[in-house]
């Protein structure tokens, strides 16, 4: 039937009114998720410019002050402004989550597609290796990696990004491989093989364009969990070092004061869960739109 006409043509179309008209047909999760994500991104980029205080300025108010016009979200035990710290933290959080996930999805996606297409012993080797990595509990695995690199490096943001990427890589790799082993049975892949194309060319031209939908969704889901993982590491003291305004670290530092001054924990916790929820809503909506497209094909 011809009742499935929207998506790709619509991408090519321009014009604001048409764009607005189309938003009505998008899943609400995608719309809300993108709006929230945009806010987070704006805060991350412009935040340092307009935040009321530097993140490490002590004594901006009395310690453990409740929210008041001067300190919008109150202060912590050293009198640092929590609002400013949360705003400054956004860029750390987003940068680490997005880069680590991107590395994992690109590398994992490539390895997975190649492994699924070539098959045989290479497939067995890569997949068993991935499975071994997946079988280790996430936090234990992250701790092992940090230990192996050396505790003295544990505050490094690049190391954290590497750890998260390494945790996610085998998982996205398996996902990409499962897509590839379905795609390689398609006739167009057979035609490409009968044309004498190289494995690289088939993965690049024939498989990747059809796997991008799945990989994008995978990226979104993983990026939504990355702040939690980074936060957990921060909480355990293996993340970034104080006084960096990383949200997980802030929760950890202030947990002893949870009853006395709940704002100190609530502010970073709400910011973190808001980010996770908006990333999840965005991917949920994206998956639906892409699913619609895939069904059409």
């Amino acid at each position, binding site marked *: *039937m*011809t*009742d*499935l*006409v*929207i998506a*790709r*043509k619509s991408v090519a179309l321009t014009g604001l009114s048409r764009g607005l008209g189309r938003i009505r*047909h998008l899943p609400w999760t995608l719309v809300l998720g993108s709006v929230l994500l945009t806010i987070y991104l704006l805060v991350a980029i412009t935040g340092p410019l307009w935040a009321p205080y530097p993140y490490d300025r002590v004594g901006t108010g009395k310690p453990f002050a409740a929210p008041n016009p001067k300190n919008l979200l109150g202060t912590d035990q050293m009198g640092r402004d929590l609002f400013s710290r949360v705003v400054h933290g956004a860029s750390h959080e987003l940068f680490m989550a997005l880069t680590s996930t991107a590395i994992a999805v690109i590398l994992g996606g490539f390895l997975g597609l190649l492994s699924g297409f070539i098959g045989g012993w290479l497939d067995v080797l890569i997949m068993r290796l991935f499975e071994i990595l997946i079988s280790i509990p996430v936090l234990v695995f992250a701790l092992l990696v940090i230990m192996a690199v050396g505790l003295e490096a544990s505050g490094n943001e690049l190391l954290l990004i590497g750890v998260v990427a390494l945790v996610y890589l085998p998982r996205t790799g398996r996902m990409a491989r499962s897509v590839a082993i379905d795609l390689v049975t*398609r*006739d*167009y892949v*057979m*035609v*490409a*093989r*009968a*044309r*004498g*194309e190289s494995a690289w060319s088939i993965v690049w*031209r*024939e498989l990747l*364009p*059809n796997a*991008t939908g799945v990989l994008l969704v995978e990226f979104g889901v993983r990026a939504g969990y990355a702040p939690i993982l980074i936060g957990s590491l921060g909480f355990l003291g293996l993340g970034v070092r104080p006084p960096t305004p990383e949200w997980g670290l802030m929760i950890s530092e202030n947990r002893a004061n949870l009853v006395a001054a709940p704002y100190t924990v609530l502010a970073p916790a709400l910011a973190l869960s808001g980010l996770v929820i908006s990333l999840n809503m965005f991917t949920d909506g994206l998956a639906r739109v892409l699913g619609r497209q895939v069904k*059409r*094909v």
Partner: protein
Amino acid sequence: MQPNGPLIEIRNLTVEYWQGDRWNPVIEGLHLHINPAETLGLVGESGCGKSTTANALMGYRPRGARYRSGQVLFAGQDLLRLSNRALQHIRGRQISLVPQNPTTALSPGIHVGDQIVETLMVHRYSATVREARERALDLLVRVGLPNPPIIYKRYPHQLSGGQQQRVIIAMALACDPQLIVLDEPTTGLDVTTQAQILDLLMDLQASYGLAMLYVTHNLGVVAQICTRIGVMYAGQLVEVAPRQTIFKQPLHPYTQGLIASVPRITAPKQVRSLLLKGLLKRSDLPPGCPFAPRCDFARERCLVEKQHLTEVGESHAVACWRWQEIPSFAQRIAETQSAVFQKCETVGCKAGEILLKVDNLCAAYTFDHPRPFARPLPRLIVDGVSFEIQPGETFALVGESGSGKSTIARALNGFIPYVTGELRFDGKYDLTIPVDKRTRDLLRELQLVFQNPDASLNPRQRISQIIGRPLQVFFGLSGAALRRRVEALLEDVRLDRSYYDRYPDELSGGERQRVAIARALAAEPKLMLCDEVLSALDVSVQANIIELLADLQAKRNIAYLFISHDLAVVRSLAHRVGVLYWGCLCEVGTTEEVFTPPFHPYTYLLLSAVPEADPDQVMPEARKDIGLVVSEEKPACPFALRCPWKDPMHCNDEPPPWQTLSRTHMLRCHIPIEELRQHDIWADRFGRV
């Protein structure tokens, strides 16, 4: 009309589907009735609204659809206004459905017998479960399933497609309905299985006096089993008539074109100028007759004035105001008979020139391991097949599904792990080497086209990339030269240049198949392997692609290995035919030789199962056929298990000899030629009317 009036009547039905931003009519102002004990056939091409009509008869509203106007009157009630609860008492009880795909219609985890019992109990047709079981067993006998107690306890996956469809029919019959709606019930089945199901339906109709609505795109099937036929186009009924009338004197130009498009096994000629031109574009239909943009006889008035069915003869109605002015079908055919398309008859003369020589080909996907550490035995799908193809000729392989046709094509392409035998291509290439080890020239000269263009075109590539890629790989073209060549190829397959930047899902099925053909042509091959290239297409599109393939062959001298299960298509396209059964060839010859007696028993069986779009022909009942049998032990003659004329003395044990009838015609059978000559399928088909 009948004294008691029709059994069910559709009045002025308009159905619309939600298409993203607005309601689009799929059926407009449809009037239709079915009389008691009548089989009404509803035919038309895909997307014409046949299945939507069938749904409406069940009072079923699919997701995203709405009934804007109209009534479906059954026993004094309007089914479209009934509550779901009220409909439950009618569906399955008084009106039942046989869907297209039996595999998905049966629940996989329940014994098939219990599924019939469930129907009986839900409708309280049987008072007790014991009674229902007895009736279920009885029904299984009546739909011709052997050994009902065993079938009763089977799960759906343990039955063949034909058996599954019989179970569905038993379920539909369970509560003695007054009407059965059959929605393409034989479309996924082999011809031989289809023939059995049609036999069964005709028997049931004769013995129960059921009314049936038979929805299909296959004109041959309706010609065999329907009493009255309705032709649909773009959601409207354009012609309704008794079957003799519709096939002999169709009045609507669309009906004429549709009937002329159907390939015949008896008359291999196609009437070219009668073929339907263009495509149904639902997005821009004129306010008047929907067929007007494609019609040869259209006038201004056609485009603006709605056409309604008007009685023109005894129970013959047509929706065309010019029906009296349009030349009759017989006249149009007679005028254009000379313009049939020509198969190049030069083939066969150039003796000695051989493009592809296949000698004793054996192929297998998997291996059996009889004992640990013993040498693994290949499980042969193709078992000793030999044939030759000359340059520029079309060699067709026919057989049922599972006979190994596609495996041969894959073996030639080097995709099969186990291949033995001598495969020589173009004198210098050995085709037993796998695809990764072949030279670029060999890859270029051997191209393949698949059945389903949805799967063979990458949905994320533009048409220009799809057709352009082989040009880059084989000829190193790029830039403007590449673009020119792609556009020339688009023209060769009669597609507009504007398709250059499109994606496959913006094209219709027939257009996509043209793109697939263009991609193969781009490599300038000497041999094209066409694996069921026409099976997924509508008849009018099929006819156009057949014509295209014939033209390309004449121009470029390409040889085709044409794999098909459709004997009518094969007869109209192929120069020579090989008949394949269970991995072995049983008859090879020129098309004329294979299609005239003497026949190999399997060829006879295949030909007897084809429903021809001609109500004067019948499908001989000579076969008590059981369908493709694959047992553990393959008898010496693979066909012995099914052969109607087999001699138990030696058919099971001695391999049959090749009997040579002419330089080109050989068949492999124990039965003497003189005896085979007595079974003339054409006499049998026309004989008992």
